[in-house]
């Protein structure tokens, strides 16, 4: 039973086709690593997987709950780190998971520090701690290695490995190398390389793709 299935998913942004007929399944324990240059559609793929963006074609299936890591930390700036994490943990019904998540991201010492005082790398780890604490089987990680030093990257990889060992799965989009043993690679290409924009009828304009949903 797959946790998340992409079936012939097509993504169109601003009248340009970013990827076309993309199909893969995320099994328990699996990891998919999406790579590609800037603007190739990595973030759009993650947002489609999260259900935040409607694909121009194809379907995304899966009942398993998902945890999303995007560019924004999405932790309230004025709150201490532990309390900011606790807000999301409360929504997930897992307030007891915060301490373990802080431990896994080596942030326990910073638990009482307000979010706005954290450095770029620490914020990244804090956002990742939110994903760890969520307990969701499917992790959707958009550029999780951004701003991390080598120690933090090792922590990230270890946490993903532990998650997969517990039957979870991860969909990771990254332009820097992330070590995921046994991963399924997906390579996206820069749009426009030998491909025509999807909107061929100029009268219809870029709103055309909405018709196909």
């Amino acid at each position, binding site marked *: 039973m797959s946790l998340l299935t992409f079936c012939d998913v097509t993504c169109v942004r601003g009248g340009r086709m970013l990827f076309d007929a993309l199909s893969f399944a995320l099994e328990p324990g699996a990891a998919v690593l999406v790579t590609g240059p800037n603007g190739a559609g990595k973030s759009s793929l993650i947002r489609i997987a*999260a*259900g*935040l963006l*409607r694909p121009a074609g194809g379907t995304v299936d899966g009942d398993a709950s998902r945890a999303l890591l995007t560019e*924004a930390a*999405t932790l*309230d700036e004025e709150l201490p780190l532990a309390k900011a994490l606790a807000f999301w943990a409360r*929504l997930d019904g897992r307030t007891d998971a915060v301490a373990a998540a802080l431990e896994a991201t080596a942030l326990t010492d910073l638990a009482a520090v307000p979010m706005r005082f954290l450095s770029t790398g620490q914020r990244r780890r804090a956002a990742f701690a939110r994903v760890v604490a969520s307990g969701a089987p499917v992790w959707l990680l958009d550029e999780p290695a951004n701003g991390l030093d080598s120690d933090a990257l090792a922590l990230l990889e270890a946490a993903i490995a532990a998650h997969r060992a517990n039957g979870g799965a991860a969909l990771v989009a990254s332009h820097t190398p992330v070590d995921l043993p046994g991963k399924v690679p997906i390579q996206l290409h820069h749009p426009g390389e030998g491909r025509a924009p999807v909107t061929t009828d100029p009268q219809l304009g870029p709103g055309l793709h909405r018709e196909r949903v």
Partner: protein
Amino acid sequence: MIATLILRDIRRAWIGGGALLPVAFFLLVAILFPFAVGPNAALLARVGGGVLWAAALLAALIPVERLVAPDLASGVIDQLLVRGQSAAVIALAKLAAHWLSFAPPILLAALPAAALLDLPSDTLIRVEIGLLIGTPGLAALALSVGALTATLRGAGALAGLLILPLAIPLLIFGAGSLDGGTGALKLLAAVSLLLVAGAPFVAGAAIRASLD
């Protein structure tokens, strides 16, 4: 679940001082008015109720930009949607939180404002009852327009242009209820109810649309 969201929004409204700004604005309008029309007690007492209603309307514009836009930019809305919350439920929580941090301070501030305008006590009571019924409608308008303009930069002026015409029925029936009688109050309640019932869906659809 919803309670957690409401509590967070109320907390954020108060820590930034955001909840006090509309009150300060409301009081300022009430203070400026006697300067403009002169210290004629009889005149002030006659128009004072209407002045408080107009002041409340203007105060409702102040928080519009912080209702939805910050959460959209910081990814909070994304995270809630990923957790399976519908956009309408998120908007409903925001509406409740906004009313709870907007209406009670305004109702309290109406007391000193009424004193400044030398308002008779029965007029003050009618203003308070009217505001209690009308502020949910004002909060609903502010939330809907806040969500519709969330992705625009510098949307404050546009938000004012959108809200004020739509708030005219609230103002008419609110000020109309000052003459006594319950007819205007019933119509005020009907308009307020309509706005409150529609706002979660309007704001929810606007939040959804802003993701694309």
